[in-house]
């Protein structure tokens, strides 16, 4: 944080000329607001996921077929023991929702990490070395972009079978394109900086230049994209689950909960509304956080 505010103290005279101060301030305030709100909500969900076993009122896997589909508290005939009712197999819906946060977050975060590693490695390599290396990697990126994600993910998951690991790996190996594109251009920018030349003149080995000179200067892009990709992965997993090839039961991902509730949509819409809203809030929070970070770190990118 100190780093970011330190960068803000540098006032670009050009910028000051062009935009008036109030607007600038306004944007920063609203950026901080979205970081605050998004961060708080996301923090709450992460907390819920981390302490699921303490927070959940029931065992999320324990079934009771005679108590299926009990309605949530705002409806008549609800059971006070199950605040959000029970699911198709009579499992406590609130507990499953709490545990589901674990799975959905895990999918989002792990996918973003895997794709982040792949995409940054490709992007930085292409951006730093340029020339043929860049041409080959650009080609790989173009090829990847031309393949429809949902279709390929479905085909692969159909091939290897749906499981938490499979979904994370498949999405991780598919969602790296945005990282690669952004990191490539950020690296191209950074590598033309004199501090890179200075490091080379010092005799710094290439790996060290990439890791300690280039990477710290492009990593803020990485964080912003990562937040969007977390959201993207969570939604994609939900779509895969909806089409029947996502995470497998009894693990309760929110996407799977929506998918399982699909058949009750018409008469018991609360079954998909609850995880649907939870999912939307999670994605919204992650997106807000990403937006905020981007806005806050935007002026410095214009170097």
């Amino acid at each position, binding site marked *: 944080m100190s780093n970011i505010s330190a960068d803000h103290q540098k006032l670009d005279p050009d910028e000051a000329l062009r935009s008036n101060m109030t607007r600038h301030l306004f944007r920063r305030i609203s950026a901080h607001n979205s970081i605050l709100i998004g961060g708080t909500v996301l923090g709450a969900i992460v907390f819920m996921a981390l302490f699921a076993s303490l927070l959940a009122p029931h065992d999320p*896997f*324990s*079934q009771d*077929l*005679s108590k*299926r*589909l009990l309605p949530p508290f705002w409806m008549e005939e609800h059971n006070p023991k199950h605040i959000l009712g029970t699911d*198709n*197999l009579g499992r406590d819906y609130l507990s499953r929702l709490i545990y589901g946060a674990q799975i959905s977050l895990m999918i989002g975060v792990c996918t973003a990490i895997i794709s982040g590693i792949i995409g940054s490695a490709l992007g930085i390599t292409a951006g730093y070395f340029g020339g043929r290396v860049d041409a080959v990697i650009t080609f790989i990126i173009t090829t990847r972009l031309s393949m429809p994600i949902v279709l390929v993910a479905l085909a692969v998951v*159909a091939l290897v*079978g*749906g499981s938490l690991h499979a979904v994370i790996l498949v999405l991780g190996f598919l969602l790296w394109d945005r990282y690669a594109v952004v990191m490539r251009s950020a690296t191209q920018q950074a590598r033309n900086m004199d501090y890179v030349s200075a490091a080379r003149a010092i005799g710094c080995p290439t790996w060290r230049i990439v890791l300690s000179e280039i990477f710290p200067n492009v990593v803020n892009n990485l964080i912003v994209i990562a937040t969007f990709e977390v959201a993207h992965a969570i939604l994609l997993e939900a779509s895969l689950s909806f089409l029947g090839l996502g995470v*497998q*039961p*009894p693990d309760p991902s929110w996407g799977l909960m929506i998918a*399982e509730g*699909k*058949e*009750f*949509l*018409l*008469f*018991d819409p609360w079954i998909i509304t609850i995880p649907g809203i939870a999912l939307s809030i999670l994605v919204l929070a992650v997106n807000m956080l990403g937006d905020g970070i981007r806005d806050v770190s935007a002026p410095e990118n214009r170097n």
Partner: protein
Amino acid sequence: MSKWTKFVSFLIASLFGLSEAHAGKENDTLVWVTKFEPPTYNYYDQTLREGVILSRHIWDSLYWRDLETGEFKPHLATKMEYSNPTTIDITLRKDVVFHNGEKFDADDVVFTINEILNPENKYKNRKLISWAKKAEKTGQYSVRLHLGKIFAPAMEMLSTAVVMYPDEYYKKVGKNGFARAPVGTGPYKAAEVVPGKHLALERNESYFGGAKGKANISKVLMRFVDEPNTQIAELMSGNADLIWRLNKEQGKKLNRVSGVRAVAGETMRVGYLQFDSSGSTGEHPLKNIKVRQAISHAIDRESIAVNLQGGGQVLDLFCYPTQVGCESPNAPKYSYDPAKAKQLLAEAGYPNGFEIDFYAYRNRNFAEAMMGFMAEVGIKANMEWMKYSALRDKVRKDEVPFNFMTWGSGSVNDVFRITSYFFNHSSDDLALDPDVKKYLDAGDGTIVVEDRKKNYSEALRLIAERAHALPLFSYAYYYGMSDDLDFQTTPDEIVHLYRAKWK
């Protein structure tokens, strides 16, 4: 709805000029909305249930099994009898014409059977006839069918699944031409085929009747909608008269909606757990008979059938009760008894349970519920969810020790198509029990009904006693229909629309 919303709806509706519903009694059109469109209307070239159902409407079989009594009744044929155990002599009706006016005679029967039988013609559902060897014309209205070897349910097949094509028309339009403009003798003719959208059927006014009887409703429109909620919405909004394969909740809730109702219907599809009791997939606890019995006692099949499915019957034998040969009074029954299951597990040397991979391809909620029941006695089953074709493949490669699958017997009302199929040492057989095979071979090898029943009974008793597989329950689901419609469900998983009528 408030005045305001009504006004806005009216405004937008008139703006968009929405077409009014075309379903219903007023225009004598039954709209049946179902999930899958048959890939082709050439019945023998596909395996989809919807296609099988259509075969009963557009075409006819030689005999017809009465849906109420189960008796075989003359239909396209006036007489069918065995002249010896591998030869059937058939005499045909003389007054039947196809939808296009072509006369029905022995040439059509011989052509149809020999055409499908020829492997070079690549019919995807050749197995419907593959038990026969060849058909031979013995007169303009008589045919002799050579079986090659004894096939007990031949009569059953000829009375349901084997339907007759018009030879002249078929030769003219070819396999794929026929697929888009099918012609038969049946109670309905295909009036309009719009692939990807719908199929319109019209009543065959010059239908000969036979054992099926003439159709009541003059037009049937079959529409294909993937999403069950959409199907229900279409029914509730009056755009559909009949939908099927609803689950229990949908059925129950639908009954509270005015103008429509839901009816539960049982089918002969059997759910089962298959154990690798022979150990051909390697070492695992299921090789121990006590473990298999423990699992059989651990799962509350009744509860799943009642609570999750809302219908169907719990089965004690590995077959559907109406199937010929599906009786065995001395076979043991496995009641829901977790305590006994735990005790059996302890005796088998697994007092703390064990972990095993559990494969399934449909009814995820049933599988999950079973996993829950097993977890209660200490067995941790890890679900492996696969596509049917992939799972089937894996079973045949001896890579699946424990699976939950289902079997519809191809709507054949004979244990030959289920019990014999799974225990005849084929690659689908994980038990490889020579005693069971011995009795099944004896049952399959005769056409004398009493001998068959005796042998099958022994085989079924051994299967249950040795817990090679656990039959779960028959499948059931709800049909949703408009209140105007009078429609009876049947367990053969076939929607007999020609029997439907308006109230």
